[in-house]
């Protein structure tokens, strides 16, 4: 690759490295492909343009310390992390944790993330596990490097390791601090050559133990994110910014109707346009390639294509979706999937209950609708394939594209660069597959970018749910039975970057060998209810493939939908019991004495109590007695856990009884994710989770008629805006561990958990304010107004 007017900073740095040292050859001759990158190099300038790394691109060996961590001559370090940062600051937090274990200053390290040729396969992003799982591996590796450095110093000084002290990359004798050696002097520019152990990447580690929490200095500090200055001054290089010599631009032409079959393409309709190069067509996939980007846009719009509508409607209109989900026979249960989970005797307990409450909740499909649409650049130079992408899972992107193109994986590399959010959409990044396919067809670098209507209509969707709940209270208002039954429109889940399920593959007629109905768990709470049933069944829409309603993971997949129903219903039960919603929950949480190994029950109680205290919660049943003014105010709580993190959210709302507009002026979030690495980064992440949750609660819905998605831009698919942002957000960081000072306290995930309770908290607040129970998302003004009027509010 030679320099265009925008070249990846890492590549520049790598070139610089290669120009200044023989390290690469040395490592190469040893069978390792580990590249050093000096801290200075990342901002290097005036570098000669030369190939960064010729293929093939074998996997870095995760059992070699050198694959994870390099110490340079100047004592700075580079960490190689097989994750991707979606803007939650996981790169900064990982660097804090590894610097702490290695014992170097934060500004003496850089992090390289998500390059399949340079970083070990830690899977990229997903499941809020970057800090909880993968950075803990990084800690172990950094601790091992420190141990090895101490041994080297011990040998040099002829003194036992116990007599040595380490401070910021300098090892000295405790008895004579004037005798010291730096990390750079010990190993700078050379390999550690230390083998690690571990059955898999997540278990990789050495002999050294990680430090007790009390000895960590950088962990727990709000160190500013390293990526923010360049994002603010315009110098940051995103995946959208990469330019290569000779690259050309493509735009897709999508079927105008779901399930349509392409019958004819009239290339002459665009072949005379300036810059026109090719129409590429295979099956129902069509793209136009032009020299310039605006030419490709115009040609894709102008291309005359004839489509034939499918014989049967692909799906019911969005207004009929929930009736369809409830009336259609679900997919057969198979292999335990869809089987009800039963505890006690729910039917008997409901029959004996003093009060039975029943309610039905509906959640529509919701899109990811990233602020920038899908995009990628693929370079087929030298018979290899390099993809520049913001795919959050670059490793499966690589193997998926290799399989799709019929290339050996080692001839394909994926270079992750930042892009517009991730939240699950880029776990199946279609544009990278399209760019690679077109680059192979044209034999030159091709950049693909989707248009807005394409992204909003055809991105992956969070599945729609229809949830029916029954609950039984005894004469004292105790919850004795809970029956949760959900139907989920989640068929042929597209998975992650699979060669047969990405959109281009579907349109080309490829199909997975075994299409699998999607599933979902039940509510994530720790309530003690003696009799329960939970059942989730997938319902198939008529069109399974080539559909704009293909599902994919959307931030905390399924959690907000399930919790909207479950935690709204807990409030309905509390109201039926004439109980305060906080007290009612605490009673359910305290109902059992036992707890699990991570104290999830105790930590659930802690967040509910902390949220109520921070809000200044006044104990009383809901709804509040409505006042007479135009604006009705109320407060609502919801609680949940995700994996090992517990969270409680309180929303305060104002409901305008004249136009149905709901506002959320204040939110409180109590959050226990164990060890906090970067408090400000955590707070920013939680704030984003909460506001994204407000957006999904008030506005977001995929609309469709019987043949196509009709919500295609920011007017037809509205999102939260500045006007809707709360005026006050209180984030309360909780450590509810019974032994809060435990030296082995672990961090748990924070990228998604606080998203989960938001819709229910708002629904409960709207009920508190108005007495009206909103059971269908989103709460757009016209829907709220209709409910208020029906209830005579």
């Amino acid at each position, binding site marked *: 690759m030679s320099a265009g007017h925008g070249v990846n900073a890492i590549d520049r740095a790598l070139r610089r490295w290669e120009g200044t040292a023989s390290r690469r050859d040395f490592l190469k001759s040893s069978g390792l492909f580990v590249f050093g990158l000096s801290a200075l190099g990342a901002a290097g300038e005036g570098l000669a343009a030369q190939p960064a790394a010729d293929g093939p691109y074998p996997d870095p060996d995760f059992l070699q310390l050198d694959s994870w961590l390099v110490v340079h001559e100047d004592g700075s370090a580079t960490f190689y992390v097989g994750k991707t940062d979606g803007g939650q600051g996981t790169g900064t937090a990982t660097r804090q944790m590894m610097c702490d274990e290695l014992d170097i200053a934060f500004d003496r390290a850089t992090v390289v993330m998500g390059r399949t040729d340079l970083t070990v396969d830690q899977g990229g992003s997903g499941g809020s596990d970057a800090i909880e799982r993968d950075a803990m591996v990084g800690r172990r590796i950094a601790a091992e490097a420190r141990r090895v450095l101490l041994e080297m110093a011990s040998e040099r000084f002829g003194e036992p390791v116990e007599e040595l002290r380490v401070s910021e990359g300098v090892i000295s004798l405790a008895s004579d601090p004037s005798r010291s050696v730096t990390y750079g002097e010990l190993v700078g520019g050379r390999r550690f050559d230390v083998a690690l152990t571990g059955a898999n990447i997540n278990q990789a580690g050495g002999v050294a133990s990680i430090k007790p929490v009390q000895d960590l200095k950088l962990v727990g500090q709000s160190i*500013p994110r390293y990526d923010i200055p360049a994002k603010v001054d315009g110098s940051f290089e995103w995946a959208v910014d990469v330019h290569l010599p000779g690259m050309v631009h493509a735009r897709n032409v999508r079927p105008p109707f779901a399930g349509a079959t392409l019958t004819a393409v009239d290339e002459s309709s665009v072949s005379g346009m300036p810059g026109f190069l090719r129409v590429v067509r295979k099956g129902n996939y069509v793209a136009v390639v032009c020299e310039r980007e605006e030419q490709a846009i115009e040609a894709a719009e102008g291309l005359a294509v004839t489509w034939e509508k499918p014989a049967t409607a692909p799906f019911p209109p969005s207004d009929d979706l929930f009736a369809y989900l409830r009336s259609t026979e679900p997919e057969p249960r198979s292999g335990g999937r869809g089987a009800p989970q039963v505890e006690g005797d729910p039917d008997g307990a409901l029959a004996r209950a003093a009060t039975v409450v029943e309610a039905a909740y509906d959640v529509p499909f919701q899109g990811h609708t990233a602020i*920038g649409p899908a995009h990628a650049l693929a370079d087929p130079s030298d018979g290899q394939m390099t993809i520049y992408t913001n795919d959050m899972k670059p490793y499966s992107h690589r193997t998926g594209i290799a399989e799709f193109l019929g290339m050996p994986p080692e001839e394909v590399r994926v270079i992750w660069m930042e892009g517009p959010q991730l939240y699950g959409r880029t776990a199946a990044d279609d544009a990278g597959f399209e760019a690679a396919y077109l680059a192979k067809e044209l034999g030159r670098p091709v950049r693909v970018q989707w248009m*807005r209507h394409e992204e909003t209509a055809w991105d992956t969707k969070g599945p729609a749910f229809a949830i029916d709940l029954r609950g039984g209270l005894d004469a004292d208002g105790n919850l004795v039975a809970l029956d949760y039954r959900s139907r989920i429109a989640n068929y042929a889940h597209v998975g992650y970057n699979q060669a047969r399920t990405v959109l281009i593959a579907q349109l080309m007629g490829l199909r997975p060998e075994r299409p699998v109905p999607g599933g979902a768990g039940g509510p994530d709470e720790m309530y003690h209810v003696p009799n329960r049933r939970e059942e989730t069944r997938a319902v198939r829409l008529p069109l399974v493939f080539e559909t704009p309603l293909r599902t994919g993971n959307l931030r905390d997949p399924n959690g907000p939908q399930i919790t909207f129903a479950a935690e709204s219903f807990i409030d309905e039960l509390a109201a039926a019991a004439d109980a305060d919603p906080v007290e009612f929950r605490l009673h359910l949480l305290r109902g059992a004495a036992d707890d699990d190994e991570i104290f999830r029950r105790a930590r659930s109680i802690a967040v509910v109590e902390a949220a109520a205290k921070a809000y200044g919660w006044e104990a009383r049943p809901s709804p509040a007695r409505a006042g007479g003014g135009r604006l009705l105010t109320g407060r609502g709580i919801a609680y949940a856990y995700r994996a090992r993190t517990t969270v409680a959210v309180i929303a305060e709302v104002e409901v305008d009884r004249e136009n149905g507009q709901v506002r959320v002026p204040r939110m409180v979030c109590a959050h226990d994710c164990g060890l906090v690495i970067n408090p400000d980064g955590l707070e920013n992440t939680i704030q984003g989770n909460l506001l994204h949750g407000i957006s999904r609660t008030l506005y977001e819905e995929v609309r469709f008629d019987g043949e196509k998605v009709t919500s295609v831009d920011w007017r037809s698919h509205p999102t939260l805006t500045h006007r809707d*942002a709360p005026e006050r957000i209180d984030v309360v960081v909780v450590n509810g561990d019974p032994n809060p000072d435990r030296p082995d306290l672990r961090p748990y995930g924070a990228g998604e958990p606080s998203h989960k309770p938001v819709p229910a908290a708002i629904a409960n607040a709207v009920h508190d304010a108005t007495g009206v129970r909103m059971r269908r998302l989103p709460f757009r003004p016209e829907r709220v107004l209709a409910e208020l009027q029906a209830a005579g509010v």
Partner: protein
Amino acid sequence: MQETTLTVNGKTHTVNVDPATPLLYVLRNDLGLRGPRFGCGLAQCGTCTVLMDGRPIRSCILPVSRTRGEITTLEGLPEDGELHPVQQAWIDEQVPQCGFCQNGQILTAAALLETNPAPTDDEIRRGMNPILCRCMTYFRIQSAVKRAAAAMAETEADR
């Protein structure tokens, strides 16, 4: 194709493109600028914002032939090597998550404070409302605008 001359961040450029080409593609692909980015192509989201004679415009829909006066992109906002107070406030408040939309947020805030140096909370909300953020960093953006306004007032008072 037609030669068009435009002034961007204080430099004059001549490009040879279809005069109907939206300014965004010229800035990104011909001039190599990274600040303005494609978000919607419909002037709905603000990700492509640039300043034209100090006023925020949507470069995704403005034909290059209709640009007038001085174009300023995010890269051109600093003066004499110093970040604009709005940019500094963005760092101090640690505003961005992914950061993809922040170009439009920062330029719109800078233009807002130019015409209204001491906006109320409500004026900030209304002034910033056209710029969308899907990481939903609105809360911090609004704090940063207030911080920038205070910093600019202090600089003014020192003069």
